[in-house]
């Protein structure tokens, strides 16, 4: 019997090793797997390369992981926010490496990794600082930049419901990077509000089929940390 459910957050993240590349879902706070990140902080892995759209908000979740000095490098599109002070201070002190990637290239590089694509030509960023030193090619009447996939050791994502086979459905715009990140890591770990019985998720609306998910852990909504604001700050 396939059972991808794990009993605790600690068990879910137990084997994340020092130096691992970890995809972390979310756009700001929406869809950010806060409890899995807290468990990772507790677990202690360091020298991590983190891939996320942002670089943490306030003092919780991803920002707390940064604050604990576990992150060597962050790959993201939009680190600077009104409440990104943890990242800002580390960056200004030269204590974290930043790879800035246009958001669509970030998404497509993750998608490419999950889909077995070796590299792809994209028009985004052509002629800009963010394409400096990269191969380019003119195809038809347009110029493109060669971009490579982002493979990861682990992905930490958040979904609404899942089952023991790892099938997932998401909640509203909390979906964002979850489905593509799930495909791009050797080991994808999903936290869900509720684990349901097989067959309870409508097969027509399953967004992430279980083949992409290795572990699933239930974090009921009422267990959400008090530290996270209920209304995201801009």
């Amino acid at each position, binding site marked *: 019997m396939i059972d991808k459910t794990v009993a605790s957050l600690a068990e879910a993240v137990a084997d994340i090793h020092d130096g691992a590349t970890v995809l972390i879902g979310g756009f700001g706070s929406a869809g950010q797997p806060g409890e899995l990140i807290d468990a990772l902080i507790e677990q202690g892995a360091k020298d991590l390369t983190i891939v996320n759209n942002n670089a943490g908000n306030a003092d919780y979740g991803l920002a707390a992981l940064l604050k604990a000095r576990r992150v060597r490098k962050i790959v993201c599109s939009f680190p600077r926010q009104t409440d990104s002070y943890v990242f800002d201070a580390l960056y200004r002190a030269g204590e974290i490496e930043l790879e800035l990637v246009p958001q669509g290239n970030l998404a497509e590089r993750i998608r490419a990794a999950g889909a077995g694509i070796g590299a792809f030509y994209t028009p985004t960023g052509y002629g800009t600082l*963010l394409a400096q030193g990269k191969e380019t090619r003119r195809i038809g009447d347009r110029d493109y930049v060669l971009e490579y996939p982002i493979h990861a050791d682990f992905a930490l994502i958040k979904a609404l419901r899942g089952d023991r086979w790892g099938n997932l459905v998401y909640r*509203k715009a909390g979906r964002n990077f979850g489905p593509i990140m799930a495909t791009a890591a050797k080991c994808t770990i999903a936290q869900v509000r509720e684990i349901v019985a097989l067959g309870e998720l409508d097969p027509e609306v399953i967004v992430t089929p279980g083949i992409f998910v290795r572990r699933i852990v239930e974090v009921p909504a009422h267990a959400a940390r008090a530290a996270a604001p209920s209304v995201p700050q*801009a």
Partner: protein
Amino acid sequence: MTSTYQRLDRNRMAARVAHDIPEGAYVNLGIGLPTLVANHLPRDREILLQSENGILGMGPAPPAGQEDEDLINAGKQPVTLLRGGAYFHHADSFAMMRGGHLDICVLGAFQVSATGDLANWHTGAPDAIPAVGGAMDLAIGAKQVFVMMEHLTKSGEPKIVERCSYPLTGIGCVSRIYTDLAVIDVTRTGLQAVEWVDGLSFEELARLTGAPLSRAQARRAA
């Protein structure tokens, strides 16, 4: 002789942009100033707003107390979903942009060049923390790229320039510029002023614009 003219305030600029968005358009509004355009879309037109974080059919801010942390816009402010709206993942969201499916995007800018180059993500200052978000994808992906910005910097320098001095977001991607003074089209033969505020002469507008400017054939009153 000093002319007397009134600059458009931010809401009148937003209303002016909104006026040009047609029925049925799929539109992405960039963060900052362009977000205001949503408040001025004509109510008799069905216009679908796309948000980069996976929303099509984005609605206005919810009433106080009904915010949902999983339903936010690109600026991470709480929003709502219209009936018929949809959620999707990031690769699909950026396929909508890069794949040329969006009719219009409206972006803020530091500078726009005579040939429609856009600079809006980074000042290049040594102490600045760069952040690009979806700007580069929107700039090269949408069928039409509208820029909405003040005509001059706070220190009075033109933001429309011969060549951008700030790092570029996209090359030759801007179709039309809306400022607090004028509406200017980027054409193959250069910048053309379509309209400008009352009390401002074309010559004065040209003087406040850092690249050669011609008059479009039919000038409309702003």
